[in-house]
């Protein structure tokens, strides 16, 4: 087993890539993918810790996160398909009707 720190650094690295993507990209599909990156980075960290403590808790939590991610992807893709079908621009910045 390598030092846990490497796993955590990798997880942080992937997380930051995901955050950067969510904050800067305008295409909803790409944002969704980056969101997945963030979630899986979290998963990685969870599994690493689980291995470190010898506890199975982290892995179970990671499974739950995967379920949530799957559900969220379903909803997100549904929204994106609806956007596409209604010929709305695939640009998240232009979806601003819920402003104050």
């Amino acid at each position, binding site marked *: 087993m390598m030092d846990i720190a490497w796993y955590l650094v990798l997880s942080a690295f992937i997380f930051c890539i995901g955050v950067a993507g969510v904050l800067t990209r305008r295409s909803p599909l790409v944002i969704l993918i980056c969101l997945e990156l963030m979630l899986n980075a979290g998963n990685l960290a969870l599994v690493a810790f689980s291995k470190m403590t010898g506890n199975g808790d982290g892995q179970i939590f990671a499974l739950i996160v995967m379920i949530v991610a799957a559900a969220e992807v379903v909803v997100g893709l549904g929204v994106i398909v609806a956007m596409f079908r209604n010929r709305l621009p695939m640009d998240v910045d232009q979806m*601003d009707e819920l*402003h104050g």
Partner: protein
Amino acid sequence: MTATAFGWLVLAFPLAGSITIALGFRQWRGRTAGWIGSGAIGLAFASSIGALIALQSRSPSQRALTSSLWNYIATEGVNVKLGILVDPLAVFMCLVVSGVSFLIHVYSVAYMDSDRGYSRYFSYLNFFVFSMLLLVLAGNFFLLIVGWAFVGFASYALISFWYRRRTAVRAGIKAFVINVVGDVGLVIAAILIQRDTGALDFPAVFARAGSVWHHNEWVIVAICLLILVGAFAKSAQIPLHTWLPDAMEGPTPVSALIHAATMVTAGVYLIARTHPLFELAPTAADISAAIGALTLFFAGTVALVVTDLKRVIAYSTISQIGYMVMGVSIAAYSAGMFHLMTHAFFKALMFMAAGSVIAAMAGTQDMDRMSGMRRAMPFTSVAFVAAALALAAFPGTSGYFSKDDILAFAAERGSGYWILYVVGTVGALMTAIYAFRMIFRVFAGEPNEEARELEHGHLAHAEPVNPLTGEPEDTDVGFPGPEHHIAEREAAMRAPMTLLAVLSIVAGVIQIPHVTDVVTDFLAPTFADSRFADVEPSVGLSVLTLALGALMSLSGIAIAYLVWVRRPGTSAQLVARFRRTHDFLIHKWYFDEAYDLLVVRPMTRLGQAASRTFERVVIDGVSQGAAMVVRAGNSLVRVAQSGIVRYYALALMTGVTALALYFLIAAK
């Protein structure tokens, strides 16, 4: 029956009459309502006689009886019962009021026939008599004020009787508001009296007055001045007199009853009734006498120039009441009341005769269009002359003795009161002049068109037009009814006029100085507590004043004869020469204009300022201001809600990072 039982009957009959007529107002056909009303007042008069007899059967010191029905207000500090006081003064007033009212009711039965508001008229007229009787019979200040206000209301209702007439409606509200001003004065006086003496009923208040207030203490002077506010508002003395001439908008019998014989005398009654208070506050009594004198002079001058027949008589009323006010203010109580009685006779008669003339003139009241009516209307002209003789204090008439009684008393009081005597005598001269000015202008000379028509037996008819505004009258509400009634053709009008004419001429015999003393003796028990109870003009003084009075009267009639009969162009010349004075007089000394400037216009402007400016700017400003503050805050906060998801995400991340950093650093 006891005197107080008769007293309650006096009140009950007119009230019952009023309610009966009102409830069945759709049922009464023809003149029924009129006879019901007259009958009710006739019964009231009979009850007054009953009260008189019952009272006189008691010894003089026992002639003040009270009786009450129930507790009206009985709470901490204020105790008012519905109670009446029957004493000589009250009975005197009851007799005069119910007697003259009865005659005027009978007159109205014929005069108001064919008016669409016939039943309403008699209901109101009965209610008025009830109120006036309530006022004079009231046994405490509270009930007096109630009667006072009811009388004011009845007056308003009858002035604006022809309510589709704008001028009548305006006159009504003017009379009502001035009356309320008087009411407020009375109320505050009553509260002050209650505060200091702890009672509101007359016997208690007058008994305690001497021990509670010192002579001429400012409180009692203030109280008396407030009572005067009420008295002057009701009796049309300066400066609260402006409503009376406008009140001529009402039907002529109303003017006869309310604005000549009864309501306007209420102020005189009030001063006489509260004489113990006035004798404690000589300052107030003197002010009252001075205003009475000023008023009689003022009204006399105006009566010399106005051309509306009823308004001349109205100003004459104001002037004569000035005499009465002057009389009771200088403690000539029986003289003042005597003049009240004789004035009721001849002034009511004068209005009745004027009504007949106006009916013959198809509703016109302008003397400029009247002349030579004596042949066409013989009875009316004789009646009018009888009234004018009494008014002018022609020697031997009732007016002669009653007016002189007051003036002699003023002379007897001496010192400063001689001024009152002089003013009164000058006033007597003016009275004679304007009284016969009316006679000569209306009845003497060549018959005018309406008179000639009447001589041929045809009563003139014209489309009625409001003389003040020129707009056609709305005859739907009666004015004037399609028929006119003149005395020559209606027995119901002639009978009362005849009786009043006889009374105007001969009633003076009951109070000839040093010969007969009926009025003084009758009223003596009420005024026994007066400091001036035994003051009586000496024989020499009486002869002097009687002679001077006769001189004034005869000279006045002679002057009138000269100006209006002998040398017809004289009055026009006088008007041209004294144009400025004439304008001043014709505008009634500019009182109305002064009120308009000082009261009406500022109030209107205040109301407009309040509603347009203050309400909109300040009050609405508060709510608008609050709303604006909230909206401003809103626009500040709004900026953050751009609707762009990425910015929300950025905000989220920034926040999380900040928190994480905080905890990381804090953990160190």
